[in-house]
C-alpha cells in the first residue's frame, strides 16, 4: 500500500468514526466534496514562481482565494496576449531590426502585466525548447519573430500536434533552421536536401536522441547501451519530406524573399521543388513515393507526434522549465501519461500537461529534499523583482533589448537552437557527483553572475523612484512603501522578504542585513530600502525556486 492509499484508508476510517460518534441516523446523503485545503502564502508564492513571471503579494491573494487548482483553471482559459498587433501598430521603420526593442518591450509587458500569466510563462518555456533567435539570420525579421512567439502563446494550452505544424511552417523557423527554400535533390550536381530542420525537430523539439521509457529513463539494449531514436537514413527521409516550402505568394520558389506580409503567414508548398520519392521515417515507417508535399508533411509530423518518446521528452523539459531540474521518474511518468491521454482519449493536450505538472504532489512536496526546485533563470529573477516592485518607465516601455548580455538570456535571444543552456548540464561538484543536473547553472558563470549582480546594484540604488535623473526608458522600481517603514529595521526586512521570499528569509540573511542597516542612519530611508532589496535579490535564497 502506498502513502496515498494509506491516507485514503485513514480518511475513510475517520469519517466512519465521526459518523458513529454523531449517532444521528436519518437518510444517507453523499458527503459534499471536501473543500480544497487552505493555501498558505508560501504555497501561493511557490505556485506563482512556477506558473508566472514571478509571485506578487496581490496575485498570491488571488491564489489563496481561488485555491491553486481554481487559479490554474482560470488561467488556462485566459486568451493570449499577443506581440505582433503591437508591433504593427507602430510606425514601420526603415529596417525591421529597429523594432527589436519594441518586441522585447511587448514581451515584458505581456509577461509582467498581462492577464494570461500562466500562458505567457509556458510560451516562454516553449521558446526555450523550439528555439528561434533574434541573434543571427532573423535579426531583421522582427514581425516574424513576434508572430512566432504569438504562435507559441496561442498554442501553449492547445495540442502539441498543431503546435509542431505551426512551428514547422513558420517562416521564422523556416529561415532559422533552413527548411525555407529547401529543394528536392539534384543527383547530377550532388545536391541533397538540407538536413538541418529534419535533425533538430527530432533532437530538440520532440523525441530526442535515444529511446526513452515512459518515466523518462533511457531504454537500454541487451548490451546495456542506449538505443538511438533515429539514424542518418531517417534524418535524410525527413529532410526529403521538408522540401518545396518557402514564403507564401512568392513570384518563384528560388526568387522568394521576405516581405512584411509573407513573414507572418505559414510557408507555402511549391510542388515542383518537393521530392516525390519514398521516405524513411521513425519506427520503421516508410512514406510511399508520389505523395504531395502536404501529404508528406502531415504524415511525417504524425509520425513524430506519435513516437512514444514525445510524452516523456516534453514532460521532462516543461517540468525543468517550470518546477524542478531533477524530477523523479514517477513525476515524469505521471505527466507523460497525461500527454499520451488527457483522460478523454486525446494525445498531446498541452493544457492538461501543464496542469498535471503544476498540480502534481511533487511540484510542492510536503517534505522538501535538497534536489527539489531549481535555480531561477536570471531573466525570471528580474521579472519577479519587477512584478513585486511595480517596475515601470516614464515612457511606459520595457525595451531592455540588451537582456541577453546583462542576464545571459532574453526573449528569443538564444545564441543557437540549443537554447541558453542544455537540459543535461551538470556543473562540477556535488551536483555532478550525485548524477544530477542544473541547466540554469550553465549560464551562471563567474562572469555572468557578476553581470547579473551588478544589474541588481544599479536597479536598486540607481533605477528607483527616488532618482530624479532617469531617462524616459529607464525601468525603475518603486520602494516608497519600504521607505515609509525604514526607520524600523525589522519591519523593513519583513516587508522586502514578504514581497520577494514570501516572508521565508533565513536567519543568516536577516542578520547580515540588520548589520548593514546599523551602518546607515535611519534618516537615510531610500538607502536602507535599496540596500535591503539589493542584498535579498542577490542572495542564493532568492536565486533559488523552491
Amino acid at each position: 500500500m502506498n502513502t496515498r492509499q494509506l491516507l485514503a484508508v485513514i480518511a475513510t476510517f475517520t469519517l466512519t468514526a465521526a459518523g458513529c460518534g454523531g449517532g444521528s441516523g436519518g437518510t444517507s446523503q453523499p458527503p459534499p466534496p471536501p473543500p480544497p485545503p487552505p493555501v498558505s502564502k508560501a504555497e501561493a508564492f511557490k505556485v506563482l514562481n512556477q506558473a508566472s513571471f514571478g509571485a506578487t503579494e496581490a496575485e498570491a491573494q488571488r491564489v489563496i482565494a481561488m485555491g491553486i487548482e481554481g487559479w490554474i483553471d482560470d488561467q488556462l482559459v485566459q486568451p493570449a496576449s499577443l506581440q505582433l498587433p503591437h508591433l504593427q501598430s507602430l510606425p514601420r521603420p526603415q529596417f525591421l531590426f529597429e523594432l527589436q526593442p519594441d518586441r522585447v518591450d511587448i514581451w515584458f509587458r505581456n509577461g509582467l502585466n498581462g492577464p494570461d500569466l500562466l500562458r505567457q510563462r509556458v510560451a516562454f518555456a516553449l521558446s526555450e525548447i523550439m528555439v528561434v533567435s533574434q541573434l543571427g539570420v532573423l535579426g531583421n525579421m522582427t514581425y516574424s519573430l513576434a508572430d512566432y512567439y504569438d504562435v507559441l502563446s496561442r498554442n501553449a494550452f492547445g495540442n502539441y500536434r498543431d503546435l509542431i505544424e505551426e512551428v514547422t511552417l513558420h517562416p521564422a523557423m523556416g529561415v532559422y533552421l533552413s527548411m525555407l527554400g529547401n529543394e528536392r535533390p539534384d543527383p547530377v550536381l550532388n545536391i541533397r536536401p538540407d538536413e538541418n530542420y529534419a535533425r533538430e525537430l527530432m533532437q530538440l523539439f520532440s523525441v530526442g536522441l535515444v529511446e526513452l521509457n515512459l518515466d523518462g529513463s533511457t531504454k537500454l539494449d541487451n548490451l546495456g547501451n542506449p538505443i538511438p531514436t533515429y539514424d542518418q537514413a531517417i534524418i535524410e527521409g525527413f529532410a526529403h519530406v521538408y522540401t518545396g516550402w518557402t514564403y507564401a505568394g512568392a513570384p518563384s520558389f528560388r526568387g522568394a524573399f521576405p516581405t512584411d506580409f509573407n513573414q507572418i503567414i505559414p510557408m507555402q508548398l511549391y510542388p515542383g521543388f518537393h521530392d516525390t520519392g519514398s521516405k524513411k521515417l521513425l519506427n520503421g515507417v516508410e512514406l510511399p513515393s508520389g505523395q504531395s508535399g502536404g501529404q508528406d508533411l502531415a504524415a511525417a509530423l504524425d509520425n513524430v507526434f506519435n513516437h512514444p518518446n514525445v510524452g516523456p521528452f516534453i514532460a521532462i523539459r516543461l517540468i525543468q522549465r517550470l518546477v524542478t531540474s531533477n524530477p523523479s521518474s514517477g513525476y515524469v511518468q505521471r505527466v507523460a501519461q497525461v500527454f499520451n491521454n488527457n483522460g478523454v482519449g486525446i494525445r498531446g493536450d498541452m493544457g492538461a500537461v501543464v496542469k498535471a505538472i503544476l498540480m502534481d504532489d511533487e511540484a510542492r512536496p510536503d517534505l522538501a529534499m535538497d534536489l527539489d526546485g531549481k535555480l531561477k533563470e536570471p531573466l525570471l529573477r528580474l521579472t519577479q523583482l519587477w512584478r513585486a516592485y511595480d517596475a515601470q518607465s516614464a515612457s511606459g516601455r520595457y525595451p531592455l533589448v540588451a537582456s541577453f548580455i546583462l542576464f545571459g538570456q532574453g526573449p528569443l535571444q538564444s545564441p543557437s537552437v540549443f537554447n541558453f543552456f542544455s537540459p543535461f548540464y551538470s556543473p562540477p561538484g556535488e551536483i555532478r557527483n550525485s548524477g544530477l543536473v542544473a541547466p540554469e547553472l550553465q549560464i551562471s558563470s563567474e562572469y555572468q553572475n557578476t553581470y547579473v549582480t551588478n544589474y541588481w546594484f544599479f536597479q536598486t540604488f540607481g533605477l528607483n523612484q527616488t532618482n530624479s535623473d532617469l531617462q524616459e526608458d529607464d525601468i525603475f522600481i518603486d520602494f516608497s512603501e519600504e521607505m515609509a517603514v525604514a526607520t524600523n529595521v525589522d519591519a523593513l526586512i519583513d516587508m522586502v522578504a514578504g514581497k520577494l521570499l514570501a516572508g521565508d528569509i533565513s536567519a543568516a540573511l536577516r542578520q547580515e542585513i540588520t548589520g548593514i542597516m546599523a551602518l546607515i542612519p535611519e534618516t537615510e530611508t531610500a538607502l536602507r530600502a535599496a540596500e535591503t532589496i539589493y542584498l535579498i535579490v542577490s542572495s542564493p535564497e532568492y536565486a533559488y525556486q523552491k
Partner: protein
Amino acid sequence: MVKINRRDFLRSTSAAAVFAATPGLAYSQVVGGGAPFDDYRALVCVFFFGGNDSFNMLVPRSDTEYGVYAASRQNLAIAQQDLLPITTPGTGTTLYGMHPTMTSLQQLFESGSAAFITNVGPLVEPTSRDDFFNKSVALPPQLFSHNDQQDQWNSLKGNRTSKTGWAGRMTDLIRTNVAGQQMATNASLFGNNLLQSADETIAYVMGPGGPLQFTGFSTTPGEPGFEQRQAFLRILEAQYGSIYERAFAEVQNRAIATADTVTAAIDSRPPPNTIFPQSQLGGQLRTVARLIAARDDLQMQRQVFFVAAGGFDSHDNQNQDQPGLLADISESVSAFYNATVELGVADSVTTFTQSDFGRTLTSNGDGTDHAWGGNQIILGDAVSGGQLIGNYPELRIGGPEDVGGGRFIPSTSADQYAATLAKWFGIPDIDLDIVAPNLANFAVRDLGFMA
C-alpha cells in the same frame, strides 16, 4: 575597483549612464605564488561552434585532386586559381592551397609556424568504411549531432557517463605542480565548457574582455562598500538547504574572490602593440594575450585558454558567409601569434582549433550539412609547422573514407591530437591515457607535430 558612494549614486547620478559604462570595468587582478615547473606553457583552444567547413579551408590544388574536389563540391567549390598555394613536404604530386581569404595564416604556414592536422575527428578505434557499415567497431555516440560531437571533441569520453573534459583532466593531473598559481589553470573567455570541466579543479570563466568586477564593493577597511562586501561574502558562506543554492553561492564566491585579488596584473602591463581584428574572436584572443603578458605577476606556469567563435553551421548561404568566417580565423589567430612573438613567448604558447565536425562535401543547394572528420589548425613556434599532419582524404563521393554525401571517417583521432598537445604541455606519457582514454586503441601515441 570602481568605488561608488551609494548615497551619491542614489541621489544624483544618472544610473543609466553609469550602468552603460559598466562593461568597461573589466579587468580583474590576480596574484601569484610559486610552482615546480621550470618553464611557462600555454594552450589556447579556439573552438568554431557549428562545424567549420574545413575542406574549403584546406583544398587540393593539383589538377587531378582538385578535379575530384570540384566534382564533389559543385556550386560550393573554391575556384582553383583563387587558392593560396602552400608548400607541403611529403605530399608528392598532390599540392594544396588555402582559402583565398586566409593570407595571414598562409604566411605563417609557409614560415613554419603553422600546420594543419588533416581529417581529424572523434573515433573510438581505427575505423574503415566496412567497419562503419558492418558496425564492427565501436563508434562515438551520436555522430553528426552538434552538441554530442562538441562533447566528444571536448571530453573524448564516448558514452562514459563521467563528463569531464580532456583539458580538465590534464589540469587535475598537474594540479600539485602548479599549486602556487593564483588563477585557475583553465580559463574560459566563452562561458562554461566541457573541455575544461574537471573533478578536482574548477575552470574560471571571465568575459571576452577579461574578468568583471562587482560594483560597489571595497576591499579596504573603512572605505564605503567594505562592510557591504564582508556581509555579502558571509551570506554566500551560510549553510543552504538545496544543491542549487550551494552551487550558485560557490560560483558567486569564486567570482568575488577573483575580483577581490585583482590589483593591476593585467592593467600593469601595456597592451600589445599588435592590432587584433575587431571581431568576437579577435577580442577574446587580445585578452588572452594580455593575460599571458601578466603571467609572471600571476605566477602562472601552465594555462589553458578557451576562446570561441560561432556562426559556422553553414546550412545556408555558405558562399556568402564562409569568406568572412575564414578571414576572421586567419586574421585573429595570426594576430594572436604575432602578439606572442611580441611578448617573447611564441615557443611557449600553442594555439589549436576544434570544431563540432567537418561538413558534407556535397551541397544541400546553398550550404552543407553535418559530417565527421575535418582539418584543424595548430600554430606556434613549438609546432613543427609548414606541413600537413595525417592523411588528407580522397574527396570523392563514395570514396574509401566516405560514409555518405561526403562525410569522411577521420584518419586521425581527436584522442591522438589531444594527447600530442598534452604531452607537450607536460603530461607524462603514462598519464596520456587518462587525458585521451581511447589513445591505446591507436598505434601512434604522438603525432609528432610538437617540437
